[in-house]
């Protein structure tokens, strides 16, 4: 029971990370892809939107990691061993993204170079995050007697994992563009730029999602099987509903509705992923139960999470209140 609560918190943190940190990466993607007469202003709008909040948004990833290694230490050890290569590449992306973003603010002369590094790292990181999550579900990473038995290339180079990577990129780009339509509320032509980007990336998500689904049949039979359960069609309908609502709202310039629908869409996708993955952490050998830390540790962790949330949530709410209130009404 306790391990389920911790697993729930991990999934919840992952969802918030995708919604917030993911959108920051999406901002980096649009920063690199900025074009047209307002390219410079697009980049400035992105910097203004994520400047005050990206450090806090990034901490959700750290929370995911520490919860994972405290609550499910052997799962953590296995992931870090079997997926050593993609995780290392993702880390490089994280280092370069964070550094370049702050350097470009203070290094006025080389701003364009840092901006490019920031953008490229923002492509690299989400792609590999998607690949890593995909690889966990492939069932190709096997553990025998507590050790990884399938080497360092298993799982993550499969078509399924790679399409998950592309999907993560698309998703974050779509999220960021949708958020940015609100952040640029005071500049209609910029808002129009991001609205168009949001629409295009939202539409592009459909074929990518199809690719993920098609590759999942062979790429992750266990998850594919889970997706035939009773809750799957329900979830699919709701996700599609949100996705459709987001696009329609964008078309009619109802930006707040689009913002809410995009959030719902991304959250539901990850909830679906979590349900399909359950009870496995690394399919099929490592589960929530067989890798859980001793009960006392889990109990303390749940208590700490409770107190942490009391401290954290008001602070976060305050942060967003201070910096996003003018945009969000």
């Amino acid at each position, binding site marked *: 029971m306790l391990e389920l609560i911790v697993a729930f918190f991990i999934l919840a943190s992952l969802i918030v990370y995708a919604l917030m940190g993911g959108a920051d990466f999406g901002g980096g993607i649009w920063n690199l892809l900025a074009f047209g007469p307002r390219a410079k202003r697009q980049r400035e709008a992105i910097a203004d939107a994520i400047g005050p909040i990206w450090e806090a948004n990034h901490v959700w990833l750290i929370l995911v990691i520490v919860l994972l290694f405290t609550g499910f230490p052997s799962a953590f050890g296995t992931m870090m061993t079997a997926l*050593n290569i993609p995780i290392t590449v993702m880390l490089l992306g994280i280092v370069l993204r964070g550094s370049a973003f702050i350097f470009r603010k203070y290094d006025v002369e080389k701003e364009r170079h840092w901006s490019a590094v920031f953008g490229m790292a923002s492509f690299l990181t989400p792609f590999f995050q998607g690949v890593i999550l995909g690889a966990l579900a492939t069932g190709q990473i096997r553990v025998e007697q507590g050790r990884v038995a399938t080497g360092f290339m298993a799982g993550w180079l499969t078509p399924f994992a790679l399409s998950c990577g592309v999907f993560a990129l698309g998703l974050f780009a779509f999220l960021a563009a949708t958020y940015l339509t609100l952040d640029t509320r005071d500049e209609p032509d910029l808002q129009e730029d991001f609205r168009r980007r949001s629409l295009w990336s939202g539409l592009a998500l459909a074929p990518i999602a199809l690719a993920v689904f098609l590759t999942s049949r062979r790429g992750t039979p266990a998850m594919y099987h889970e997706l035939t359960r009773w809750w799957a069609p329900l979830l699919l309908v709701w996700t599609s509903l949100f996705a459709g609502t987001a696009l329609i709202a964008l078309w009619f310039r109802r930006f707040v509705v689009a913002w809410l629908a995009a959030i719902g869409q991304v959250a539901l996708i990850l909830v679906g992923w979590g349900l399909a993955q359950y009870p496995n952490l690394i399919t099929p050998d490592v589960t929530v139960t067989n890798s859980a830390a001793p009960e006392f540790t889990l109990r303390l962790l749940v208590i700490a999470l409770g107190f942490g949330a009391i401290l954290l949530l008001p602070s976060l709410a305050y942060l967003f209140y201070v910096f996003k209130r003018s945009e969000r009404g």
Partner: protein
Amino acid sequence: MGDFLFARAQMAMSLAFHIVFAAVGIGLPLLMAIAEGLYLRTKQAVYLDLCKRWAKGTAILFAVGAVSGTVLSFELGLLWPGFMQHAGAIIGMPFSLEGFAFFTEAIFLGVYLYGWKRVSPLIHWLSGLIVALSGIFSGIFVVTANAWMNSPAGFKMVDGKIEDVDPIAAMLNPASFHEVMHMTLAAFVATGFMVAAVHAFFLLRDRGNTFHRAALGIALAVACISMPLQILSGDLSARAVARLQPAKLAAMEAHYRTRTGAPLVIGGIPRDQTMTTAYAIEIPRGLSFLATHNPNASVAGLEEFHRDQWPNVRLVHWSFDLMVGSGMVMLALTLCAAVLWLKYRVLPDKRWLLHGLVGAGPLGFLAIETGWMVTELGRQPWIIYGVMRTREAVTPMPGLVAPFLIFTAVYFFLATVVVFLLRQQFLETQNPVPAQSGEVAHA
């Protein structure tokens, strides 16, 4: 070099890099908050200007510290999965708490850096204080985890399996208190002396510059209050290490033979084969006094331990001497500054003192790096002291030379950029702001 050594090298390099940013992340927000507090009280523009400059430095250093810290949390598993599989459940707790402290730090740093016009002055200042405070707590939590590796507690090892896990006892292990004290004070000492050096450098060129005078005053106050406390905490640490990790103490002091009234060995070239230290300065009964406060006490030498349990004596001993030496120089400067201040009741700005401060600028960080080497190299060959060897914990991943080289290159590059950017920030302060210096020639 094999994969094992590359894994150790990568971990060492990542920590050596991160520890600088972590320490500044603890020290600089305090300076910044003091400056803003003084501004709120006195309404003198010079303090506001100062606080804004330090805030810029904090922003740059915090960003690099945050990403290099993220790398470390992954590297624990990427390089030492065997360690994390056992230790995660025992010491994951302080890391989780650190996660929350880091969260508050990041949130209020956002408010602080970007909220000058969005929140009231009082709230702004409080945000700065929260940043400083949560930085301290982040450091405390992480150091308890390190202390546990040196002085494991809160579990039982039964047939290679870990049982009876008690994360609270693990966090409050016998090494936690002295390690936490020593590291936290070190952050204040190092930041204080480094910042003092920068502003002393500019004061040597322009003694009347009120901006640099105010800055030196604050930095020197922080450095001079924490430095003597640090010596006391060092004494506490030495006695605790003598009790908890006698092999480490023996390596620190290049102390091979167990004896009563052991001398303190300073410098020299330790030779493991002959178990002697050539060319060293010896202070009679010094070691016995330091380790137990009794000049005649017996202190265990390295001979008490099997050879495969010795740390690298030379590196540990030399690092220790460098750390203590740096501390002594900084203590001497502290005393000079204190005497001058007590005598004249103004900012101590004698030329020789300013020169001394400029020279001592890097010493705090030298002491942090070498002190950390004493702790970590002195713990070897154990990753969990007396329980698990570092070699048993390493990843089976081959080709670790690649990530080592890549991360070293990236960190070297980042360090260069950070130094360049900070220099740019400080050079801007060279041109005194008219309202504050009052000495600008009118065209």
